[in-house]
């Protein structure tokens, strides 16, 4: 895939200049990405005092008590790898260029039933295939970091220093 740096060619909607996909938030999900822009990993929680349960993905109302009041609770950013895959082509060109890369599913240390899809990288701005596959392990402890891609902050994960 040839990439040019011609600034006159805008990226396709929903993609970064190098054509990785950007999150396209819906109304319920928008706060997650706004907090991410501030470097915070927050998860939606029910704001009813008697309930307060976390939920993901975000939605208008609490499945436990049906309250429409919600708040966004700050997480520690620590988690463990619940599972992972290593996609190989055929893939969208921008992803094929970095394949095989890893996609991990992280269960949050604060709330193991909340699981976030992400990438394990060696540093916030490192490529998707920057971690040696031998280091991928279910149960490995990870820590959230944020990178800005195409103007949108995206959470990624690094191995927690032991």
């Amino acid at each position, binding site marked *: 895939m040839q990439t040019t740096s011609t600034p006159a060619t805008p990226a396709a909607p929903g993609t970064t200049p190098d054509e990785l*996909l950007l999150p*396209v938030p819906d109304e319920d999900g928008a706060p997650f990405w706004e907090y991410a822009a501030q470097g915070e990993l927050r998860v939606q929680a029910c704001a009813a005092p008697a309930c307060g349960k976390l939920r993901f993905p975000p939605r208008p109302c609490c499945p436990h008590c049906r309250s429409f009041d919600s708040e966004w609770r700050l997480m520690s950013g620590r988690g463990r790898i619940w599972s*992972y895959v290593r996609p190989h082509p055929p893939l969208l060109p921008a992803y094929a260029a970095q394949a095989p890369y890893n*996609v991990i599913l992280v269960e949050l240390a604060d709330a193991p039933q909340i699981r976030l899809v992400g990438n394990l990288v060696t540093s916030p701005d490192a490529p998707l295939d920057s971690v040696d596959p031998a280091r991928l392990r279910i149960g490995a402890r990870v820590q959230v970091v944020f990178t800005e891609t195409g103007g949108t902050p995206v959470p990624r994960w690094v191995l927690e220093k032991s």
Partner: protein
Amino acid sequence: MAATLKDATAIVGIGQTAFAKQLPQSEKELACRAILAALDDAGIDPSEVDAFSSYTMEETDEVEVAKAIGAGDVTFFSKIGYGGGGSCATVGHLAAAVATGQASVGVAWRSRKRGSGPRPWKNTAVQLPTPGQWTRPFGLLRPADEIGMLARRYMHEYGATRDHLFNVAMACRNRANENPAAMMYERPLTREMYMTARMISDPLCLFDNCLETDGALACVIVSAERARDCRQKPVYVHSVAQGLPSQHHGMVNYWNDDPLSGPAWTAARHLWKQADFGPQDVDVAQIYDAFTPLIPLSLEGYGFCGRGEGASFTEGGALEIGGRLPINTGGGGLSEAYVHGFNLINEGVKQLRGISTAQVPDAATCLVTAGEGVPTSAILLRA
């Protein structure tokens, strides 16, 4: 006493086109050919069709099909969502319509040019809104990636191995090698081929994935009473169910308490509750196999074994002809054709008519399932 669907209707006609990586005909033409073949098989004139059901992903709609085949006035039509999860529900909806007098001759069908057509996952504009915002930017792009994530966890939790997944791929390929209509007819698979195949989404390799296929299939449903006068031996729709579990999220079932017990479990509970027999009485099963790990997950969900035992269930030739539960006797989505699981329905009918190319002797009961991992459906057929 509430009305029951149990044995109230029967599948009396089946039809299909050729299956190939590339067919010259349009999806619409393929659909019409499959439907007309099914009606001819049943001995029913197309003008008598008054009900249609297909998938929301079916692009040949009932208006076009009804017009093309010369159907009469149509009084029932429905479309089922969630891709391959909809296959068995097409039969279920028509069974309900016929049993309640809303219609008398129903046609279910699926036509697809996936072999030569576009890959749905490449349409990022459609993919990106909810829930794509939580998965796609990270490169979790295709169904193989989404199911691969569950497969890895399943292997970790229960000691399942690639050899177990190979058992599934092998059983399907062996049946396809007996089925001249299958895309993989006369193309044997070996363990070495499997173990050295290129990865698609590690832990899933090429042979863990279904085939890209052009083709169409259809079946005809009428009341049990009318079925007795049809050309073919009736195959009764004994029980039907759909399944959308609590807190399910479609393909990425990662956000409920128990991601490894998917929609199969929900559909199964209702399916067996309505049936006169249980999993131990099933002679042959057609289990949706877009990906090999869906088989052990479904074996557990539909009650053929306990939780976590689906992988070991595949050992010792259990899924082969003569084994504990022969599956996907036409070759399935892995080796016959991937037409969103509709070939599994028609293969179930063939088994109960006694005309399968890999016939299970005296098969009288068959479970057919739709896509696991998405809101799903299932039917129990009996001779």
